[in-house]
């Protein structure tokens, strides 16, 4: 089954951020190698004489990827909603990665503001991708208001600590079997992405892990295969862990069998 966001299908299970790369060319190469079809971007102040935004726009258009604009850095409902409005016009998309930040040190979501902003934006026809915690009550509200995608954090943004709370993430997946789930934030290396997909998550969203890797392009390729492996393993249905050993080699016919009895 392919990945579906708001009725649209995608073959890649990677959503890739566009910030912090050593150069625009390295970013472009990393995007190509990763095979991703969705890029995240932001809206930021543009000085009249500065053309950074225009150059960036031109570059990401060349990739042919869908753009998922974010409300990164917003701390209030009003800021997030206004930023979403500006993003919709700028990127000509109803998609919005909704972030309402609650703490500067952990960048964890302000779930109260998140739910309120999501309600407003869903009512206005946005396709909201909420960056949230693994709190089931919060997530239920988001779904009730119309979110068809949920994006719980793996660990704090940019920390590279992977999936901090496997129990909570498993519960989250089990509780929302029919919602597209994306691990957003905290992915540090390829195995974290594999683990997310083995848990049954539909995709991962990451930026720093690729952009700040020693070799961004190689890491982008590593994620491509990691996600492929994780999804395959999930579909193949892994064995259940056991406490004690069980020989894989047949016992019957073992040479010297019972000779020590």
């Amino acid at each position, binding site marked *: 089954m392919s990945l579906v966001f708001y009725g649209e299908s995608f073959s890649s299970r990677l959503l890739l951020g566009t910030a912090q790369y050593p150069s625009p060319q390295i970013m472009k190469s990393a995007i190509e190698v990763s095979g991703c079809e969705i890029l995240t971007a*932001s809206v930021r102040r*543009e000085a009249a004489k500065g053309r950074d935004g225009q150059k960036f726009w031109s570059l990401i258009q060349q990739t042919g990827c869908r753009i998922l604009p974010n409300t990164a850095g917003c701390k209030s409902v009003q800021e997030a909603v206004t930023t979403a409005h500006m993003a919709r016009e700028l990127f000509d998309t109803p998609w919005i990665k909704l972030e309402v930040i609650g703490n500067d040190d952990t960048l964890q979501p302000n779930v109260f503001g998140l739910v309120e902003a999501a309600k407003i934006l869903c009512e206005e026809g946005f396709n909201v991708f909420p960056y949230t915690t693994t709190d089931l009550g919060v997530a239920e509200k988001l779904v009730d208001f119309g979110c068809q995608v949920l994006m719980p954090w793996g660990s704090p943004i940019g920390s590279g600590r992977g999936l901090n709370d496997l129990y909570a993430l498993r519960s989250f997946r089990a509780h929302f079997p029919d919602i597209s789930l994306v691990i957003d934030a905290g992915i540090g290396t390829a195995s974290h992405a594999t683990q997310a997909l083995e848990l049954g998550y539909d995709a991962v969203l990451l*930026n720093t892990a690729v952009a700040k890797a020693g070799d961004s392009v190689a890491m982008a390729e590593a994620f491509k295969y990691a996600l492929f492996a994780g999804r395959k393993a999930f579909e193949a249905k892994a064995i259940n862990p056991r406490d004690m050993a069980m020989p894989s080699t047949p016992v019957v016919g073992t040479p010297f069998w019972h000779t020590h009895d």
Partner: protein
Amino acid sequence: MKITVNGESQVTQASNLQELVKRLGYGESKIAAAFNGSFVPHSQYINTLLSEGDDIEIVAPMQGG
């Protein structure tokens, strides 16, 4: 009159948002704007009249995660 654009105070003779954007030199750049904290669509720039103390945000697509 004195207004704030992207957090910086400046004096302008522009009477509306469309004129302001033009005078500031944004030209055909891909931008979006907010007026006193609320989004203003491009089509409404000309109808958005400026007054002393107004707060304008002008943004563009940028890198993000």
